[in-house]
Structure formats: structure tokens, C-alpha cells
């Protein structure tokens, strides 16, 4: 008996031990730390055709195209050129050219400045046949001197009337070209929406040279990823656009030739079960990687804009009262700093913000500028689509940018404002006239929209999915950030989240039953004690 019992105990112990080991073993970190950019067989500094002299960017492009014969054609079909995107799942036309935003409102009525981020020399509407290949700007994405700069209408040469004020050193830039680096992409993408960090919350100049703490992948002393390490491209079409997002990547690890040939998802390197703990992996079918691994936005020391108040524009004095919306968004004015300019009004900026969370299946619907808006309601410039039941949807973090934007209270439509001068002579732009009626009239006319002559302001919000500035794994959210009452996902419907007070009635009954049991025990024990004492 004793012997068999001991044998049983040993087997039991071994079993328990094996369970324990199996469940705690941490999978080896399968992301190698030695990912180097591919080396090229070509050194452009040895090409004499790039020696110049070049009078304009177009001449540089002409030289590029002598070898890269298809490049310009490819670029002209890409979103970087067309600024127009047609979704596969709807007729909606997206892209900068068409959409409203919570910053300057519209791109298309402010083209002179906005096109300084266009990959071309001189803006032409898409479909314009007069566009020639050499209008494509190769240098902006490929040169590595970091001195290349673009001016109005995408020009690389700064002119006043016909006088050349600034001309870049084209030959040295042409000789420096490589695959695009962070400096090329960041030159535009880190400064969108009016300045450094304004737009996205997870893209700003701190990512030019980030440390491990800020971004584990782009860490300059570590993996040192470029943007295109993940945003892979075929034929100059960059993958991973916000207009064509996938909230999940069911394909998992990307194997060239076998999968979708993009690494613009976490799963394309890490797979869909990247954690050592099964239960944490069980989250990946509902929770986006970003939700836990981007604990806060604007973590690099550069603030992101959270509120743009156009009401104060032109008034030479900023309204420094924090807007009521901050309370709803969970912001406090202590986290903020403000900027004011006559032509742009007041903006509020903050760092290290907790994101907002929503179910997201990859689809974002945008407000059509022709749609009527009710001035008493918050205007959603874009809507994040996704329902908890949709297997393609994930809980995803967002940055919300709020704005008090101009709208036409009579026609009840948003105003496409003409803010930026087309040319020095342009007196109608808001930055010249400081008159909403004049600038709005021009903007609305350009858009072919009716304008009553009245301008009022309406609160608007626009959401940007967060996916950059991935923190080291030790900084990923702890369970309690969500698994408690009042946690980050408070109010998010359609998910059973242990740790919230999910069954208040059941808890009350359960605790009541335990308390009644204990009282019963106490009374019973007391009577026993009294009776025994009474006998003595």
C-alpha cells in the first residue's frame, strides 16, 4: 500500500511539474536582432549622368529615368502621386484630394502649400494628360543628404517671381540616392497636419533617431528599421495605407512568394501567436497588438495636436479656456500646451496620451463634404467601422483630434476654406484677408459647393489608428489596465472582460451567501461556547 502510494505520488509530482514547465516556458524571441537593410549592387555616386549640372528637379528625374524606365509610370499610379484612393469595398473616393480633415479642413482648396508634400514638381489634377514623366520627384523619397526641401507646388527650387532664391545641390543629392529611409518618409509624414507630430500621435520627428524605449523596431542603436522595412513596396506602391487597412492579418508570418508580400502588419513577422503564454495569445483574435504594445501616444517628447480651435483665428488673441470636449476625451489642460497664430487660431498639444479604443475591421468611412451636418452635434469627420462579432475586427487604439471647424449654418455643410495663398497676389485667402466669408466663398466655389455667406463653427472629431512607437515588451500594458472597473476599455461593448464588475447581482448574492454562512457559523460557535461554559 505504502509503496504504491509513493509511486503514485512521484508520478503525480512529475505530471504536475511537467504541466508547470509546459505552461511557463517562454518561447525564444524569434525576431533576429540582425536585420540589416539590403545592400545594393549599384552605387549611384559612380553614375556620371548624375553629375549634372541640373537646373531643376525635372532634369534630375530625366537622368533617373534613363535607367529606371518604368519608375515614373509606377509612381504616377501610386497614392503618393494621385492623392486619391478608391476603396475596393465602396464607391467612396478617399485620399487627400477628396477628404475633409480636422486640421486645415481640406487639401484641395489649399494646394499651393499642401503640394509641398507631393511627390511631383507642379501639381496637376489626376487624369491630366499633360503630365509628363519627368514631373515625378525621385529625390524627395530617395536622396540621403537630408538637405532636400520642397516649396509651394512641390518645387525643389525656391523662386520669387522669376528670380531663383534657393536651389539645392542636385548632383550631390542625385549621387546619394538609396532605398528610402526614415528621413525621406518622415520629411512629410512626421509633419502632417500643420507641424511636427500634429496629425498622427504616433509619427513625429522623434522617430528620425529613436531609442529602444520609443520604438523597439526603429531603435537607431538596435534593429534600426526604416519605414519601408515594414511598408514594403511593389512597383512603387507602398503597402500599409490608412485608406486600405487590415485590422488583422490572418495570413501571419510573411513568406515571400507565399503570402500577400507585405510586412506592414505585426503578424507578418511575429505571427498570430507571438506570446509564450497561451492566454495572452488568446487575445490576438480580439485585441490588436497595438492596443497593448503602444501604451501611450506621442511618447517621444514631441506633442501631438488634440484640439484645433478655428474660432480664434484672425482675432489676434487665443482663447485659452480648455474646451469642454477635453473632459469627454479624458484630457486635462495640465497635460497641454497651446499655440496661437492669427491665421490658424489656437491649437492644443499634448504628450503621452492614453489612446481611445474602438472595434475596428479596417474600414474607415469619411464624411462627404456635401453631406449636411447638424450644428448642434459633434461632426464625425471619419467613422471607424467594426463590430465585436466580426472576425476581422479588433479592438484598436486611436488618436482623436478635435476641432472647432467652420461650417455654413444656412446650407448646413462643412466649409472648404481657402486658407493659403495660391500666389503672392492672392488677397482672398484667409491668411491674407483674415475674413472667413471671403476665404470660404473662394473655397466653396472651387469645390462647386453652395455658400450662404454665413460662417459658424461646429465641433468635429477625426480618429487616426495608432500603429507606430511600439514600446519594449516590458512596457506593454499590464492586464489590470483593462481587466478592472474603469479600465482602458471601459464602455467598450461586445466583449466579456474578466476583472470588470460583470455580474453585480451575482457578486452581491455570492458575497451575501458567504456572509450568512459566516454569521451562522459564528452564532453556532457562540452557542456551543456558552453551553460548554454554562456546564462548568
Amino acid at each position, binding site marked *: *500500500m505504502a509503496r504504491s502510494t509513493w509511486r503514485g505520488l512521484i508520478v503525480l509530482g512529475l505530471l504536475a511539474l511537467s504541466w508547470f514547465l509546459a505552461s511557463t516556458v517562454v518561447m525564444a524571441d524569434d525576431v533576429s536582432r540582425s536585420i540589416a537593410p539590403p545592400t545594393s549592387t549599384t552605387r549611384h555616386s559612380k553614375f556620371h549622368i548624375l553629375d549634372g549640372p541640373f537646373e531643376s528637379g525635372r532634369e534630375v528625374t530625366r537622368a533617373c529615368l534613363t535607367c529606371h524606365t518604368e519608375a515614373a509610370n509606377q509612381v504616377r499610379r501610386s497614392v503618393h502621386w494621385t492623392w486619391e484612393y478608391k476603396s475596393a469595398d465602396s464607391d467612396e473616393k478617399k485620399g487627400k484630394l477628396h477628404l475633409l480633415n480636422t486640421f486645415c479642413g481640406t487639401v484641395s482648396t489649399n494646394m499651393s502649400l499642401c503640394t509641398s508634400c507631393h511627390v511631383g514638381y507642379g501639381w496637376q489634377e489626376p487624369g491630366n494628360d499633360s503630365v509628363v514623366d519627368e514631373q515625378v520627384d525621385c529625390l524627395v523619397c530617395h536622396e540621403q543628404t537630408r538637405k532636400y526641401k520642397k516649396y509651394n507646388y512641390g518645387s525643389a527650387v525656391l523662386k520669387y517671381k522669376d528670380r531663383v532664391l534657393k536651389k539645392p545641390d542636385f548632383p550631390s543629392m542625385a549621387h546619394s540616392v538609396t532605398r528610402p529611409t526614415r528621413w525621406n518618409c518622415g520629411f512629410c509624414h512626421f509633419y502632417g497636419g500643420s507641424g511636427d507630430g500634429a496629425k498622427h500621435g504616433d509619427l513625429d520627428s522623434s522617430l528620425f533617431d529613436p531609442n529602444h524605449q520609443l520604438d523597439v523596431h526603429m531603435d537607431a542603436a538596435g534593429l534600426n528599421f526604416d519605414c519601408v522595412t515594414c511598408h514594403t513596396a511593389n512597383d512603387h506602391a507602398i503597402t500599409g495605407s490608412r485608406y486600405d487597412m487590415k485590422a488583422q492579418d490572418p495570413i501571419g508570418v510573411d513568406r515571400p512568394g507565399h503570402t500577400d508580400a507585405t510586412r506592414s502588419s505585426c503578424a507578418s513577422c511575429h505571427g498570430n501567436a507571438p506570446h509564450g503564454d497561451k492566454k495572452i495569445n488568446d487575445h490576438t483574435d480580439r485585441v490588436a497588438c497595438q492596443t497593448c504594445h503602444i501604451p501611450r501616444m506621442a511618447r517621444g517628447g514631441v506633442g501631438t495636436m488634440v484640439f484645433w480651435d478655428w474660432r480664434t483665428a484672425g482675432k489676434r488673441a487665443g482663447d485659452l479656456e480648455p474646451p469642454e470636449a477635453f473632459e469627454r476625451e479624458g484630457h486635462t489642460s495640465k497635460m497641454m500646451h497651446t499655440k496661437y497664430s492669427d491665421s490658424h487660431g489656437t491649437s492644443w498639444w499634448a504628450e503621452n496620451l492614453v489612446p481611445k479604443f474602438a472595434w475596428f475591421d479596417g474600414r474607415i468611412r469619411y464624411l462627404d463634404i456635401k453631406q449636411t451636418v447638424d450644428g448642434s452635434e459633434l461632426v464625425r469627420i471619419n467613422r471607424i467601422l467594426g463590430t465585436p462579432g466580426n472576425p476581422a475586427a479588433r479592438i484598436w487604439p486611436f488618436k482623436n483630434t478635435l476641432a472647432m471647424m467652420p461650417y455654413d449654418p444656412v446650407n448646413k455643410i462643412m466649409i472648404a476654406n481657402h486658407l493659403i495663398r495660391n500666389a503672392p497676389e492672392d488677397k482672398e485667402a484667409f491668411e491674407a484677408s483674415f475674413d472667413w466669408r471671403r476665404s470660404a466663398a473662394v473655397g466653396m466655389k472651387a469645390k462647386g459647393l453652395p455658400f450662404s455667406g454665413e460662417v459658424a463653427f461646429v465641433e468635429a472629431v477625426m480618429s487616426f489608428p495608432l500603429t507606430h512607437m511600439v514600446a519594449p515588451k516590458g512596457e506593454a500594458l499590464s492586464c489590470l489596465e483593462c481587466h478592472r472597473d474603469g479600465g482602458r476599455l471601459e464602455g467598450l461593448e461586445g466583449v466579456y472582460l474578466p476583472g470588470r464588475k460583470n455580474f453585480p447581482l451575482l457578486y452581491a448574492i455570492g458575497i451575501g451567501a458567504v456572509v450568512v454562512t459566516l454569521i451562522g457559523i459564528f452564532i453556532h460557535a457562540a452557542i456551543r461556547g456558552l453551553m460548554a461554559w454554562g456546564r462548568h
Partner: protein
Amino acid sequence: MEENRQLLFSRYERFWHWSQALLIIALMVTGFHVTGLLQWLDYKLAAQWHRYFAWSLICLWTFTIFWHLITGEWRQYIPSTEKMLEVIYYYSKGIFDPNLQHPFKVTRRLKHNPLQRLTYLVLSVVISPMLWISGLLFFYYNEWDQLGIPNLWLSGVAAVHVAMAFAMVCFFCLHVYMVFLGKPATAQLKAMLTGYRVEDIRLDADREYTVMLVEDDSDFARMIQEWFETNGVNETDRILPVRVTMVCIETLHEAVKYLNNKSVDLILLDLDLPDSRGVETLRSVMSVIRDEPVLVLTGEEDENLQSMIIREGAQEFLIKENLDRHHLLRKGRFAMERQWFLRQ
């Protein structure tokens, strides 16, 4: 001191019981962290260990179910109504009387009183399986599709788990309290720790015992009464380990009347009474008592009578002439102890 060490719980049972107890306590503590009702530990740690403990308990249970099947110990959990009412009466009333013993005497073969059987049965066929099933469903939530489990309502599964967990907490509280309901209070705890139940067959020192003397010779009766009542006055002269009250009765008629209403612990019976003689007296008494031990006092050395006395169910006969105090009290004590044993 005479003791009887009786093995109640084998080594495996004790290992099972105590490791299960620790695992259940750990599961309760970590589990209520997962629900958010406790917040002393880190959530991830609590959730992780809740799973490790659960798997360990599943291992333990697999072995234990196997053990119960091969040893036949599973029969301990078959519901029984034997002495059910007595046990209920005992827990609700008799337990407060320090003189009363538990009506159910635990043995190796019958470890559980009928209430325990019922409780443990409910625990092992309702509460535990529901905890396991809901817990495993919750653990394998992401695999429901692959496992062919219909799409249940996850928060419903969780609610069942939490409800059963509360039931388990209530059981746990009651169980811990009832461990100390033995007489003495730590007896059951000791048994579960050592495996042995120390049966103290010296009789219950806390109780007052009633000895009935049926004797018409008042001098003799007074002498016997004195013998019993001086027992223990002097600590060195303590033959009976208990306090004794004497009930002295002179006729069979009165004795029968008394015994019809009340029970006593020992009957000292003289066969020759004014209203009855010989074996008939014993027969009359035996017909009204339940199982009280009877010592017959007789003046005659009659072997035939003596064997008849034993046959009729008396424990022993004592010759009055040979009687001394020490002898009588020892015989009285053994008779009561023997009777206690026979009751088992």
C-alpha cells in the same frame, strides 16, 4: 489511560485531502482576483497561477477518481438515510450539549455520516463538475470552433463559474468550522493530519453517568451507593473515570416504569425483588431497555442460573458475598465501555 488508535484516513487520502485543500484555497484567492473582487496580487500573476493550480487539481482529481474506483472507496459517497434525522437533530440541538456524543460513529468503512455523504455528493457531482466544465470552457474559449463546441455565451459560462466559486467558498467556511465540531474540538483535525482517530474508550469524562441500582435490601443498596459516590473524591482512588449519579429502586415495577421513560448508562440488578424473582426479573428488565449494560447481582453460586443470566443478555453476574468496592466499580466501568464498543 486506555486508547484505541483507529486508522481512518490512508496516506493517499491525507495527501489528496491536504493538497486539494491548498489548491482550492489558492484557486479561491487567485480566482477572485480574476473576477476583480480581490486586488492584492498582480492580475497576470493571479490569472496565470489560477490556471496552474487548476491544472494541478485536475491531475490530482484524475488520480483520486482512479484511486476511488480501484479501492472501492467511492461507495463512501453513496447517499444514505441511516441516522439522517438523528444527525440533523444532533447538529441543530444536541451539539450544544457537551454530554451528547455524535450519533454517528465514524469507522474506516463508514467515514461519513449521512449529511456528509450528501454534502460531498453534491460537491462532487454538482459544484466541482460545474466549476471544471465552465473553467475548461473558459480556458479553451478560443478553441470552441475547433473542438466543435456550439457557440455558448461566454459571460454565461463565466457567471456559472463565479456562482459555483461562491458555493465553494460557503462550503469551505462550513467545512473548516465543522472540522472543530468533534469532541474534543481538535479530534477530527488530528485524525485528518495523522490518519488515526484516537478513540478514548475511558468514557466521556465531561459527562455525568447514571447508574441504576435495583435492590430491595436497603443496607446493601446504601453501601453500593456509597461506593459509587465516593469514587473520585480522592484523586488516587478513581476507578470510574466519570461522575456518577445513582438511581436506587427497590421493585421491578418501579424499575420498569423508570426505564420506560429514561435511559441509564448501567443497571445493577438484584434478581430477587419483592415483586419478581430469578431470571424473570432480568427478562422483564431486558424487555424494556434498549442496550444498556446490565450487571446482575446474585447471592447464589448456581452455575445453571449463571449461564441463564448470560444467555438472557446480561453482561455479567456478580456474587454479592464476594463483592468489594474496587471490583464492582471496575466491573461497572468495563461493562459500560464494552457496551460502547458493541454499539459500534
